[in-house]
Structures are given as structure tokens and as C-alpha cells.
């Protein structure tokens, strides 16, 4: 399925992403000694874990050749629905289970649309995001007073075990598990081969639809859980609470070296991507950069990170080849006015 070269390449881009995180972190430490303080690192870990949960399902979905644009709304749903359920008397623990189960259900609907109804992933998850948004808007209009987030969610998001935030430990455990599942189990290999080449996967007896369905279901669960913890951290819920995570969940995956076309990538790479994005956004305020500058640097880092981790080598190689053969492979037969 994947040769030794691919294996090394995958590690290369993951390592490169960690190197990027480390470099940014070192810049922060040099600039301000408080950057490496316990409280600062703890906060970065907590923020990175939100990105990590949002990007967990996204990693699997993208690996299998799909895309999940409903992540931000699933996160919003996680917080809002949990608060709503617990306000109406459901015990918090039960409510969390129910909310995540509904998240799985929504993910399954995404999967059914993509596999059985053959709706393109972008369209299916975009429409599903719209439907969730409509539900949240409806709920918001039904009850004007904001419900408070149950204490359990607040505790998960803000308690510490010794010096380390609980949520960071949970995230690490999830990352270990996800890493093992992707790299060592039959399910992980199937995800890779479905994303790599659907036809080959089908011919070799893999139930492509089921694999895809599973990735969307996991994305539903991980995103709603991320939403629950995020709401616990913020202390309240609101409609747009998950909005930034559409961008960051995808960015973390691709900075981590995954191919947006599927078939290549690891969750450990995504973890590095989540850390990079978080350290970066903690770093920029130190340099008195405004939100506007932050946006610009964010975009540039994503482009550079993706270029380095995925197409850097090949682009350099093709540049080199072109400099040796300036005429190019295609004879310039086309007319110049095509570019008008």
C-alpha cells in the first residue's frame, strides 16, 4: 500500500511541522521570558486542544478523501444543546452522552449523503452545517435567556491534574489512540487506501462506503465534544462559538502534512499543526501586531507550511527541471490572447 519512501515522507512532514512549532515557540521565548511560563504554556495547550478535537475528525475525513465543513456548527451544537438539555433537568453526564450521540448521528447523515446519495462532500457538509445553524438559530429564538454551561463541562475544560490541564491529558490520550488506530489497525489502513485510490480500495474488497461513513461519524463525535469543552472553557454558549474552527481545523490538518486529496497524513501531524497555529496566535500579540496583521501572518504561515510539508520538494524539483529545459514539455502552440 505504501512503500518505505512514503513512510519516510510522512514522518518528514510531521517532523517539519513540529520543527515549525518549536521555532515559533523559541522566537516567543527569546522575545519575552514569560512565554515559557507555566500559565502561558498551559493556556496554549488548552487552546490547542480545542483545535485538536475539531481537527481529529477532519483528519480522518480528509484522509479518506472527503472534507467536513459542518465542524464549526457541530461545535456550536455541542455547547448549545448541552446547556439546553441540562437546563431542562437532564443530568449533565447523561446530557453529554446524548449530545455526542446526536453528533455521531449528524456525522452519519453527512456520511450517508456523501456515500449513498453521491453528494460531493463540500456540498453535503455545507448544507448540513446550514441545517444545524438553522436549528441553533431556532433554539436561540425559542429561549432568549442564555443557559449556563453545566459544571462538568466547565471542570473538564479548566481543571488541572498537577501542573497539566486535564483537557490536555485527554487530548494526548486521544492523540495516542488516534495515532495507533490510523497507523496500526486495519481500519486505519482502509482509511488510507480509500483516500489514496477509491477504485483500487473497492476492488481489493474494502467496503469504501462504510469506511467513509465511519470517518464522518467520528468527526461528528469529536467536533461536538470539542464544542462541549470549548463552551465549558468560555462559560457560555453562543451561535458562532465554533466559527473560527472551520478554518483552523482544516489548516491544522494540512500544515501537519496531510494531502487535502486524501490518502496521506497522520494525526500526529495534525497535532503539530494545531500547536503551530496556537503558538502563532499567542506569539503575534507580543509583537504588538493587530488582528489584521495576525490574519495576514496566519495566512502566510499556512501557505508556507503547506508548501514546505507537501509540495515543497516536488515544486523545487520541477523548478530545477524547468531551469534546465527552458522550453518546457509543451510546445508554445497556444495563442497569447488566451490569457486576456
Amino acid at each position, binding site marked *: 500500500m505504501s512503500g518505505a519512501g512514503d513512510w519516510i515522507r510522512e514522518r518528514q512532514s510531521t517532523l517539519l511541522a513540529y520543527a515549525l512549532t518549536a521555532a515559533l515557540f523559541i522566537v516567543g521565548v527569546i522575545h519575552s521570558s514569560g512565554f515559557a511560563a507555566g500559565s502561558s504554556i498551559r493556556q496554549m495547550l488548552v487552546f490547542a486542544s480545542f483545535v485538536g478535537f475539531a481537527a481529529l475528525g477532519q483528519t480522518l475525513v480528509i484522509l479518506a478523501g472527503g472534507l467536513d465543513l459542518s465542524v464549526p456548527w457541530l461545535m456550536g451544537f455541542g455547547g448549545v444543546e448541552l446547556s439546553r438539555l441540562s437546563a431542562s433537568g437532564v443530568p449533565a453526564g447523561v446530557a453529554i452522552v446524548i449530545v455526542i450521540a446526536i453528533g455521531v448521528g449528524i456525522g452519519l447523515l453527512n456520511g450517508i449523503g456523501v456515500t449513498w446519495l453521491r453528494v460531493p462532500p463540500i*456540498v453535503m457538509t*455545507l448544507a448540513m452545517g446550514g441545517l444545524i445553524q438553522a436549528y441553533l438559530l431556532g433554539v436561540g429564538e425559542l429561549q432568549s435567556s442564555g443557559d449556563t454551561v453545566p459544571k462538568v463541562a466547565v471542570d473538564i475544560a479548566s481543571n488541572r491534574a498537577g501542573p497539566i490541564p486535564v483537557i490536555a491529558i485527554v487530548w494526548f490520550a486521544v492523540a495516542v489512540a488516534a495515532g495507533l488506530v490510523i497507523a496500526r489497525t486495519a481500519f486505519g489502513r482502509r482509511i488510507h487506501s480509500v483516500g489514496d485510490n477509491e477504485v483500487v480500495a473497492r476492488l481489493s474488497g474494502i467496503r469504501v462506503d462504510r469506511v467513509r461513513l465511519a470517518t464522518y461519524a467520528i468527526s461528528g463525535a469529536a467536533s461536538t465534544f470539542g464544542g462541549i469543552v470549548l463552551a465549558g472553557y468560555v462559560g457560555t454558549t453562543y451561535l458562532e462559538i465554533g466559527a473560527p474552527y472551520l478554518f483552523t481545523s482544516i489548516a491544522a490538518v494540512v500544515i501537519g502534512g496531510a494531502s487535502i486529496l486524501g490518502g496521506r497524513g497522520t494525526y500526529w501531524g495534525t497535532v503539530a499543526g494545531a500547536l503551530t497555529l496556537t503558538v502563532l496566535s499567542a506569539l503575534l500579540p507580543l509583537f504588538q501586531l493587530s488582528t489584521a496583521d495576525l*490574519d495576514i501572518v496566519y495566512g502566510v504561515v499556512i501557505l508556507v507550511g503547506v508548501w514546505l510539508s507537501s509540495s515543497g520538494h516536488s515544486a523545487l524539483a520541477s523548478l530545477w527541471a524547468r531551469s534546465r529545459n527552458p522550453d518546457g514539455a509543451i510546445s508554445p502552440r497556444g495563442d497569447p490572447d488566451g490569457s486576456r
Partner: protein
Amino acid sequence: MSASTAAPTRLRRPTLAAALRRGWSPTNAITALILIALIIADLSIQPALANLFQIGLLIETALPLILLSVAQTFVVLVGGIDLSVGGMFVVANAITAQWVGLHGGAHQWLVLVAVGFGLAMGALNGLLVVGLRFQPFIATLGTWTIFNGIALTILPTDGGSPPPFLSNLLINEVAGIPTSIVILVAIFVAWRALRATRFGVRIYAVGADEERARLNGTPVRRVKLAVYMLAGLCAALAGIYAAGANASGTPTGGDPYILTSVAAVVIGGASLRGGEGGVGMTMMAAMALTLINDIVGAENLNTWVSVAAASALLLAMVIVRTGINAAIARRRASGRPTTGVGGAIPARAGGSVSERGES
């Protein structure tokens, strides 16, 4: 040489009937019917709408989405996607509200700077995709936030003061017809003119089968670059228009348009794989989405109804179309057994690949 090799189609009188025949397909018909149904519904709810001035106002609210959806259509036609349309929109919007509006709009030519920025931003997208071989999704994901940042740098908060001449120009009438309607018609006419050029044919050729287009001598990379620049131009025009029409700028107002523009393109019948769809159908779809909002507003329904209706429409259209296409493919497969390589392309009599589902 160039004139004889390109444009092999015979010259036909562009009659309305011929145009309708060429644009005809079951899915285009469904989009058209939905739009007509929405128009009838809106008119029956608010009969006062049936005058030119009211229609002009409605189209005025629709035009930014229409222009951004047109931008998205071009990119989707060549098999790409542009998440940065919202970013290019706000940059042009901010430039118009801040730079052009300075000194009471004494430097009107600065509008051209906004247009130039649009072309440049589109060129950046195109170079990332064509030159550095980024996936369009990733490239425009990155430039989306870069452009948003640029817009915020130019105009830190909502407001600014777009030049009055622009507002007057965009809100007034031309020979008794509201400007918005004139612009809407102009966009469509410009599209039809572009579609008839060799560049128009090449857009479809590249989208339908990039490799084949390359082998036929189409300068694929240049066409793609031009398409991204064209998208930047349309997005910039949307930003300039919105600034003028609202007499105010917003540096953060672009994001909602990104996914909505994709939705409009898909509802309009374009395939995200490229080569199928057209600006005309996209404009109808964008108009339909605006009408849904208008009806929901007129009926005093909650906002969630319009979000739900738009999402449901998007899903329903795609599912129905997939079903229809599968049925057509089945009928074709049973009616015409294997005809070798040529059978792979569903050619209509007198049509070519590049003409499929266009309107």
C-alpha cells in the same frame, strides 16, 4: 493560423429560441422553475413588489451575492474553488470606503485601484494554483485570511465614507430603469459575449478535461490564471458596488458570502469537478437565494427558516440532479451499447463537450 484553427462552430443567428434550446437541460429547467415559483410566491405575498423601483431595490440587495457567485462560477468551471472571494470582496470594499472616499471623493480614479487590487489578488490565487501547484482549496484558504487582514488594515472598523458620486451612480436610474437592473443585465450580456470568445470556449475545455485541452494546444495554465484574475475582478466589483450602495464599508462582511457563493454555483447546476454550469444559471440561483430571504423577511418568519430553506434547497437540487444524471446515463448506456472511445463522451448532435449544460 489562429483564426482558422479556433472557433470551428458555424455562425448562427443568435435567436432567443436557439439560446433557450442550447441552455436546456432538465436540471437547468428545475432551477428556472424554482426561481419562477419563488418570484410568484414573493409577488403574491407582497403585490407592491410589482413595480420597477421595488424590483430594482431587491436586485440591489442581491447584486453583491450575484457578483461573488459569478466569480465563484468562473473558478468552479475550471475545476477549482475560491474561498477567498469574500476576502477580495472586503479589500475592494474597504479601499472604496476609505481611500476613494478620502477628501469627499475628490480622487474618483482611486476606484480603479480597487479594481486593480481585485485583479492582483486574483492573480496571486492563480499563481499559487498554477505556478506553485497548490490545491485551489488550500491556496485560497490561505489567501482568504490574508485578504481579510489587508481589508482590516485599510479599514479597521465598519464605516468609512464611500464617495457620494458612487452612491448616486449606483442608486439612481438610467433612463427610468433602476441602475441595479441595468447592471444585472450588463453582467449577463458580458457573460454571453465572453462565452462566445475563444477564451470562453477554453474555460469549458479546461474544465471538462484538462489533459485533453492541453493536448489540443489550449494554454491551460494561462487560462486558469486568467480565470482566477477574472474572479478577483468580479469580487472587487462586488465590493465596490456594496460600498456604494450601502454608503458604508465593512472589513469583516465577506465571510458569509464564501460558502453562499459556492451554494449558488451548485444550485445553478455547476459541477464542482468543472466544465459544467454557467454564469446565467448561477445568477438565477443567487437570485433565488435572495428571494428566499426576502420572503422570510416579508412573512416575519424567524431567520432560521431562510437558513434551513437555503440549505434544504442546496441538498435537494444536488440529490435530484445526481438522480437525473444517473437516469440519463443509464438510458444512454442501454440505448447505445459500447461505441468505443467516443461513447465515453455524451455528445449531442451538433454539440461539443464544451457546450454541455451551458447557459
